[in-house]
């Protein structure tokens, strides 16, 4: 009986054995299956949006929205509403207020964003520590995809589908809006509407990613995949594909790592994303540091 198992063989199968084990074992726990596919879905939607956010230069805006949702989550729990509703209202509301304050004062946009989102965030902290609720501040801040509840999964799914649908239907207009809003206006498109469409999609995406990455790290999921892809290609459709690939790989692998190493899920996802970004920065065929250096060393090749 014994000798069936003990023959050591240096074959591909033998190499894949432990990897297979590593991949399969966590799936025996139901919560891991849920966590992996939820984080993969979130990875897709964040990756898609991150292409627009990096091209538009809205990283700081993303950071702002993610922090501004905190009071919304607390209020939603206190009122017994779905957390996604409260988070969206406050996240989107913060961007409207940012736009209003910017138009009424002589401050630059980054200062306005800084003032408003920290204000929202602080208000959320005050509420969370005062209102008795089962909101775990740590979970809001750093995510808790391993402990995601069925109702949260449904909320996440609805927001993921809504976000992807909006982006898919408006993708060309949104890209035009990022590239040349003046031309969009010149051909009679409603750029104000596009501005708020992109903002509400941003708020929605952040709401979906809250469970996975948490408020503090959600911005990484919204910026890093797009930035990595931007370094690797000159075509938007390729950028989307690369962004989605790096994001999903990081999300799935990160969830595995957090299980095996017993570390934070959001943390390991973002660490993986950052490593991929670093690799792209150094080794990207055209815009990488290495190839730029090589190009400078031999300027005339033809």
């Amino acid at each position, binding site marked *: 009986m014994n000798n069936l198992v003990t023959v050591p063989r240096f074959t591909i199968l033998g190499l894949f054995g432990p990897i297979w084990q590593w991949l399969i074992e966590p799936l025996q726990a139901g919560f891991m299956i849920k966590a992996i596919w939820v984080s993969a879905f979130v990875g897709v939607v964040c990756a898609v949006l991150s292409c627009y956010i990096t091209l538009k230069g809205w990283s700081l805006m993303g950071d702002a929205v993610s922090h501004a949702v905190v009071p919304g989550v607390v209020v939603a729990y206190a009122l017994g509403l779905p957390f996604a509703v409260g988070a969206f209202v406050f996240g989107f509301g913060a961007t409207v207020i940012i736009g209003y304050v910017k138009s009424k004062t*002589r401050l630059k946009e980054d200062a306005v964003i800084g003032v408003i989102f920290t204000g929202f965030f602080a208000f959320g902290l005050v509420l969370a520590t005062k209102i008795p609720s089962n909101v775990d501040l740590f979970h809001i801040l750093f995510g808790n995809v391993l402990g995601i509840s069925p109702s949260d999964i449904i909320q996440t799914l609805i927001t993921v589908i809504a976000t992807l649908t909006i982006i898919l239907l408006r993708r060309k207009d949104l890209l*035009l809006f990022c*590239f*040349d809003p003046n*031309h969009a*206006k*010149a*051909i009679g498109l409603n750029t104000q509407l596009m501005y708020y469409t992109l903002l509400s999609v941003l708020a929605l995406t952040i709401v979906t990613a809250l469970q996975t990455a948490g408020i503090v790290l959600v911005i990484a999921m919204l910026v890093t995949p797009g930035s990595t892809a931007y370094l690797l290609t*000159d075509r938007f459709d390729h950028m989307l594909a690369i962004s989605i690939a790096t994001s999903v790989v990081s999300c799935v692998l990160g969830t595995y790592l957090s299980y095996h190493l017993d570390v934070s899920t959001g943390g390991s996802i973002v660490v993986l994303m950052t490593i991929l970004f670093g690799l792209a920065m150094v080794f990207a065929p055209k815009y990488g540091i290495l190839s730029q250096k090589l190009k400078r060393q031999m300027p005339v090749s033809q």
Partner: protein
Amino acid sequence: MRSDTFGITVENISVTYSNAHLALYNASCYVQPGTITGLVGPNGGGKSTLFKTIMGFVIPDQGRVHIDGLSIKMAQKRQLMAYVPQTDDVDWNFPISVADVVMMGRYGYMNMLRVSGREDRRQVAESLDRVGMSDFRRRQIGELSGGQKKRAFLARAMAQNSQVILLDEPFTGVDVKTEKRIVNLLLQLRDEGHTILVSTHDLASISTFCDRTILLNRTVLAAGTTAETFTEENLSMTFGGLPLSSLPQKNSLFQSHHE
């Protein structure tokens, strides 16, 4: 004369930016249909602001702009207005190809999903061909030379098929050969009935292709045929110090001269 040509009417426009900088004061002019009109003035004289006001990007404090009675919004909805931006206003690192940019000129004709039809693709190919950029259609826009960049955006305006085309500083950073080429295209477009407004601070080329000229420094100082307008006196008034008597008194008007 063709009946589908359009003129631009600028009525008494004043624009103040949020930092209290007065960019335009009581500017009025009429851009005649089917002409190439040069908008000439010193840097900081309000050329770009006037362009942005005509295109509806900037809302004036007072006055109004219309295209033969049509509001700017209506004119834009009808695809009557095209805008060729300054080179500095474009993100050349954007992951987009020349053909993609030109196709954006057709978005106003497409359905909500912006799916291009046969006519859209034909117009894009034809525009690229006319500006001599067909071979570069797959290039990322940042890989183009200065003149090619200008031609790519001119092709977008041509694909848009607008009656009114505004070009903001089309000759900066462009060699003589490309300038000639662009001028030839503009002359062709004018002969097809387009109304073209070109802003420039390059005086030398104006008289070679502009039918009419508008001199601008905070307000319209002179307007008319290029021969009438290009007098020594008018030019020194535009580019030299402003004679105080020729302008309505307004303190902030003169502040920037001391900066």
